[in-house]
């Protein structure tokens, strides 16, 4: 009794029987839908119609629903179209399907110009919310910090050391490698262009000032935002998703104190260290290129470097590091705690964490540049 499904029309006296035969299952759904749509056109005729399913070989939810759909569309006014020949096996399935309410409401997702403008408007208005959120987190972290100062016993040293290892010690190889390469590139480009004016030696001035004041710390901050900021957001976000943060709260712990503060402290300590190592690696790389490519021997390089830079340059660079670290950490933690229930939301907030982190780092760098210029450093 299995095989291709069919819906035959058989006249029985003044009644019309629609005889369903064969396999009425999901695999035949396209055929079945077409047959049912054809048969639906019979509705409104004068004949008395009933559906005979006694010869259906196999029935599943798809088939049962299509028979039900046919029954509903054939039903006119008070007279219900009957289903005949239902075997005991399938009766309960057809009954189940009969309880199903009409078709769902599909929300329209058309893109309109007003909709796009609305989105832009919301995004712009959201900027204020973002800034407020960051200030809120800064306040919460500072408050937690003061509480720790009063009760030093509640400070989480193990956690802080753990995060310090993650964001500082484990980041050293990649940070040193990248800054070394950038130092090499700056020196090579400098020599290549300065040579035309016979000013090879000034490449040392450029390298020293650029690396110590700007590139060292800025590059390392961007790397840390990408490497550790994203990790913080993902960690806190997945903890938020699994209600771990709610669990902490109900046990009387402050998530800021337990989770955010150790991470922030680790980052604030790590970035100056990484920036210093990065600057040294960049200077070393630059010196190597200057020697091998530009013919400036190490002794001349060091002498020139000593003249070109002062401790001020170094201080200008290194002072920025903890501030940038704090900005990255706050952005990452705010985004992490804003994650909603879905995996998609986690992805969005991790992206936002890195993008905003890098943006704020560059903004901070600009603010520092204005500040140092005005105090003459």
């Amino acid at each position, binding site marked *: 009794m299995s095989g291709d499904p069919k819906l035959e029309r058989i006249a029985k006296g003044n009644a019309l029987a629609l005889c369903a035969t064969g396999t009425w299952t*999901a695999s035949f759904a396209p055929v079945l839908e077409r047959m049912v749509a054809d048969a639906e056109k019979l509705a409104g005729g004068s004949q008395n119609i009933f559906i005979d399913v006694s010869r259906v070989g196999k029935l599943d939810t798809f088939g049962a629903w299509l028979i039900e759909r046919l029954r509903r569309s054939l039903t006119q006014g008070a007279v219900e179209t009957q289903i005949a020949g239902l075997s005991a*096996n399938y009766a309960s399935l057809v009954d189940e399907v009969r309880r199903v309410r009409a078709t769902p409401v599909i929300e329209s997702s058309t893109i309109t110009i007003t909709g796009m403008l609305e989105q832009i408007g919301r995004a712009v208005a959201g900027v204020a919310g973002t800034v407020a959120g960051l200030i809120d987190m800064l306040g919460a972290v500072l408050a937690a910090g003061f509480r720790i100062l009063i009760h030093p016993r509640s400070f989480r040293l193990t956690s802080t050391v753990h995060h310090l290892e993650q964001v500082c010690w484990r980041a050293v190889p990649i940070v040193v490698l990248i800054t070394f390469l950038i130092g090499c590139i700056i020196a090579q480009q400098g020599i290549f262009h300065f040579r035309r004016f016979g000013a090879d030696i000034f490449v040392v001035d450029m390298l020293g000032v650029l690396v110590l004041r700007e590139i060292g710390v800025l590059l390392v901050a961007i790397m840390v935002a990408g490497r550790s900021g994203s990790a913080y957001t993902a960690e806190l976000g997945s903890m938020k998703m699994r209600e771990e943060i709610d669990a902490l709260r109900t046990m009387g712990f402050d998530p800021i104190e337990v989770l955010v503060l150790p991470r922030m402290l680790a980052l604030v300590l790590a970035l100056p260290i990484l920036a210093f190592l990065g600057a040294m690696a960049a200077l070393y790389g630059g010196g190597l290129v200057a020697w091998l490519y530009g013919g400036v021997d190490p002794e001349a390089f060091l002498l020139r470097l000593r003249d070109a830079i002062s401790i001020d340059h170094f201080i200008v660079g290194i002072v920025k590091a903890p501030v940038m670290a704090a900005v990255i950490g706050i952005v990452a933690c705010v985004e992490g705690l804003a994650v909603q*229930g879905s995996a998609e939301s986690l992805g969005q907030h991790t992206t936002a964490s890195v993008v905003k982190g890098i943006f704020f780092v560059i903004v901070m760098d600009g603010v520092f540049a204005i500040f140092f210029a005005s105090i003459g450093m």
Partner: protein
Amino acid sequence: MTPESPIIRVRDITVQFGTTRVLDGLNLDVKRGEILGFVGPSGAGKSVLTRTIIGLVPKIAGSIEVFGVDLDASNTSQRRSVERRWGVLFQQGALFSSLTVRQNIQFPMREYLRVSQRLMDEITMAKLTMVGLKPEVAERFPSELSGGMIKRVALARALSLDPDLVFLDEPTSGLDPIGAGDFDELVRTLQRTLGLTVFMVTHDLDSLYTACDRIAVLGNGKIIAAGSIADMQASQHPWLRQYFHGKRARAVMG
């Protein structure tokens, strides 16, 4: 494959994590059209066996046949056709968090069937009704559902292709007793109407009494007993005696 041949045939399965042997030469048959209740102490490896059969946990020895197909010897298309015929309800639901309930249920349909959107929407509603949920739930995201609703939606997704075999990993845990009763009833109905075979890991004594045809008990990495509920009650095995004659069991039996 004759009608008598088992739907799942597990032979000498051994699964090891590090040095701990979880399953040790385990044999199990699941017959066509039955509801097999699978019990055992927590941590005995019930979920591990389920995951091994589905292919999520690697085994170090033994063979698994599902629908007469040896899963180790099968090629990709054979495996896919087996996978299309089974549905899995995970313990935590495992709904796709970035899709709505409707999209979750339609996900397997889109992959395996060529069905119009209208029919998919209607079938989604049918499945939701079958598992006892209101149509309004369809546009919600999993994070907006209660634990019991997640279970029901996950069952609807497991059933979305009208499978021949479903694996239920603790389906009634986290449901209220009435909901759990409905769930057992539902599993029974589906088994009757669709000729479904059900492999159910459970701790729920009610489910064992009302829904299951046969019970298998896991202990020490092996099946220590398999049979009807009467066989289980007659068994002299200490764990079984405790399980089926304990305070809760007496309460269930009334």
